């Protein structure tokens, strides 16, 4: 099972050593075990207790230490130049094996960068080891890829319905929606692991509630006053970008740069014939399906749901018929935040919780709702399905690290022929 690992060496160059006269540089070594999870997907698991030796190339050892729980070890060096970062193969923790065909070390150049608005890291990657998946035939993996696509589509769909409703009722392209997903996941994780030791479901309920409240607070505290001031939609979009940026780094500030996981224990995949899915993946699909049906019924049948659709169609007309548009918009934000939070829990279950998880998802969400037609909630669902499945199929057919590219190209091509999206209304577009 444990066949290989990969070694990451990143470096941060401080432009000038602050308290000391000489310059100081940081070399960060990260050790990962590359393996496959229950669903057959490639994942990286950080490995602790691995001893790292840093020395000058062709010279003396400069630093030595072990990786921590997040799999990283940081060395401080004072000289510019070339360093060799290697794993001490004589002191590996129990159960960890080295792949002799791959390397155990990597060279890195220190001191040729400048701190530039914070973008100072030079990342050097060393990919070693192979996953066990190679032995299976490609076509037999297709059903699994489709299943993974549906799981991804479910997550995108839950998250993007809210985004679509917000766009529909207020016209705002909310670039902060990805951060709502992150916040939902982070709060859930806090209740699950830090602030309490609650089970997954109570944590999730609390996390989603917090996220929903945050979302509603944002509407009351930021968007409503801006609407009153007559701020243009484009300006509001840029404001949402700025807030999203800050929120993302606040999360990173507290959470760090790595992944964290909910405490649910490892699950055995259920064999469904063509595919193997863990109970949690099945739950994700099932709950998403149920929630989406409830939301769809709500929008179609419930009085408030109809009010939402009325405001989406024509806010002035809606308020002229007595609908309190501000209240409708607030409910939309609360609902959208809750759905995003739920999506965050699902994403966290499948892929882990990280500070930039929402950012990764945001592009896919926008692709989905643009594909489906901006402002159309049902278009968002259709678009999510297409994008989710497309991403996984592309990963199956081509290289996995290009998997989002296929979906994005598909989006661009579609907008070429049908600029309003699949279910969008064909109004004057440009």
């Amino acid at each position, binding site marked *: 099972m444990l066949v290989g690992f990969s070694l990451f060496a990143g470096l941060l160059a401080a432009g000038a050593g602050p308290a000391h006269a000489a310059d100081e540089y940081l070399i960060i070594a990260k050790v990962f075990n590359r393996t496959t999870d229950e669903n057959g997907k490639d994942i990286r698991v950080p490995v602790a207790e691995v001893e790292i030796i840093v020395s000058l190339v062709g010279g003396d050892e400069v630093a030595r230490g072990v990786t921590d729980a997040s799999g990283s070890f940081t060395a401080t060096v004072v000289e510019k130049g070339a360093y060799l970062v290697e794993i001490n193969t004589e002191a590996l923790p129990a159960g960890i094996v080295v792949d002799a065909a791959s390397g155990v070390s990597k060279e890195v*150049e220190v001191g040729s960068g400048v701190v530039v608005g914070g973008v100072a890291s030079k990342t050097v990657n060393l990919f070693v080891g192979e996953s066990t998946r190679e032995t299976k035939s490609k076509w037999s993996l297709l059903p699994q890829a489709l299943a993974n696509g549906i799981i991804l589509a479910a997550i995108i769909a839950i998250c993007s319905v809210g985004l679509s409703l917000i766009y529909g009722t207020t016209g705002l392209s909310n670039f902060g929606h990805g951060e709502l997903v992150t916040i939902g996941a982070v709060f859930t994780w806090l209740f699950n692991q830090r602030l309490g030791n609650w089970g997954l479901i109570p944590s999730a309920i609390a996390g989603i509630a917090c996220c929903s409240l945050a979302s509603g607070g944002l509407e009351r505290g930021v968007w409503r006053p801006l609407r009153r001031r007559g701020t243009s939609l484009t300006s509001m979009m840029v*404001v949402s*970008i700025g807030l999203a940026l800050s929120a993302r780094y606040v999360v*990173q500030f507290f959470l760090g740069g790595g992944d964290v996981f909910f405490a649910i224990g490892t699950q055995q995949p259920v064999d469904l014939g063509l595919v193997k899915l863990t109970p949690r993946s099945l739950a994700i699909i099932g709950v998403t399906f149920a929630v989406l049906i409830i939301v769809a019924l709500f929008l179609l049948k419930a009085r408030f749901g109809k009010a939402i659709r009325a405001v989406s169609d024509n806010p002035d007309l809606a308020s002229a018929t007595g609908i309190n548009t501000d209240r409708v918009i607030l409910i939309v934000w609360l609902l959208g935040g809750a759905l995003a939070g739920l999506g965050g829990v699902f994403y966290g279950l499948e892929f882990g919780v990280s500070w930039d998880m929402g950012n990764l998802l945001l592009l896919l969400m926008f692709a989905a709702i643009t594909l489906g037609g901006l402002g159309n909630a049902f278009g968002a669902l259709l678009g999510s399905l297409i994008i989710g499945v497309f991403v996984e199929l592309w990963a199956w057919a081509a290289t996995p690290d290009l998997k989002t590219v296929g979906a994005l190209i598909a989006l661009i091509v579609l907008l070429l022929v049908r600029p309003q999206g699949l279910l969008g209304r064909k109004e004057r577009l440009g």
Partner: protein
Amino acid sequence: MNWSLIFFNSIYTAISAASAGYCLIAVGLNVHAGYTGLLNFGQAGFAAIGAYALAVPIVEFGWPWWLALIVVLVCSVLFAVLLGLPTLRLRADYLAIVTIAAAEIIRIVLRSVRFTWLTGGSDGVNGFTSTFEGWNRDYFFGDRIFKFGAQSIDGYRLFMMLVGWLLVAIVSFLLWRLMRSPWGRVLRSIREDEDAARSLGKNVFAFKMQSLVLGGVIGSIGGVVFALQQQSAQSDQFRTNLTFFAYTIVVLGGLARILGPIAGTLIFYFVMQLTDNLLDQATRNETLPTWLVDSGNYAQVKFIVAGIGLSLLVIFRPQGIFGDRKEQAFDVR
């Protein structure tokens, strides 16, 4: 706290060649969003193309520097046209999303494992600066180390600083002439109201495309300067954050103002570096409680500041430094 070093390092960073590169990226964005009203969120893609189109021909194919620069020009024009053809007919919201998608495609492809043979994958490309280092050694500052207060600067960086800001000056001057001409006037009319421009016989699509190409090429030149300063071309330098910070710079300086991006870049970089340096020293000296901030996470603070700064700017001072209060940042319609 070594105030002298904090101060001089922050100023140095603000006037470094990397800052000049950023400035050019912002200048290009100013042409798009400031003058034409094109919400191009893929400017990072142009910068990445500039950096790689310079580095790869030199390193992989051994081409001379001037040929590589021609490759930069060709690639950025090509990207602009390919980007523009589907997107320029779209509404603003669609344009923003699609341009982000396009820049992400560029970034992912550049760092992908599949193309490592050409682009160096996630390591990027190094070792393309020897000609420029040679110029510095032979004609300019050589290997001397210069002192700027408490900050040391080596000859090559000083040389690149000169080159970078000289490029900024030249480009800004040319833009200044261009924007005062009837061509520039049509761009601004497109920003105001495309249909009005069409009703007066202007081929709006053609003008938008020209604007996209112009701003994109300038952005690519910015990427070139950036890569020369860093002495590496690496796709992670060109994430969407770069575009967002470029927008912050453009709004800060004042949209559709020639001096806007210059002032914006200087201030932005200075503030970012100052924040970083202050916190770096504060955490080392433990001036601030470690439960609040430590050496592991102080680096995020400047981004938090930048994001909130952008939001506040757009809300409370959308005209930036050089703009007119009567002219607000984004469409007034």
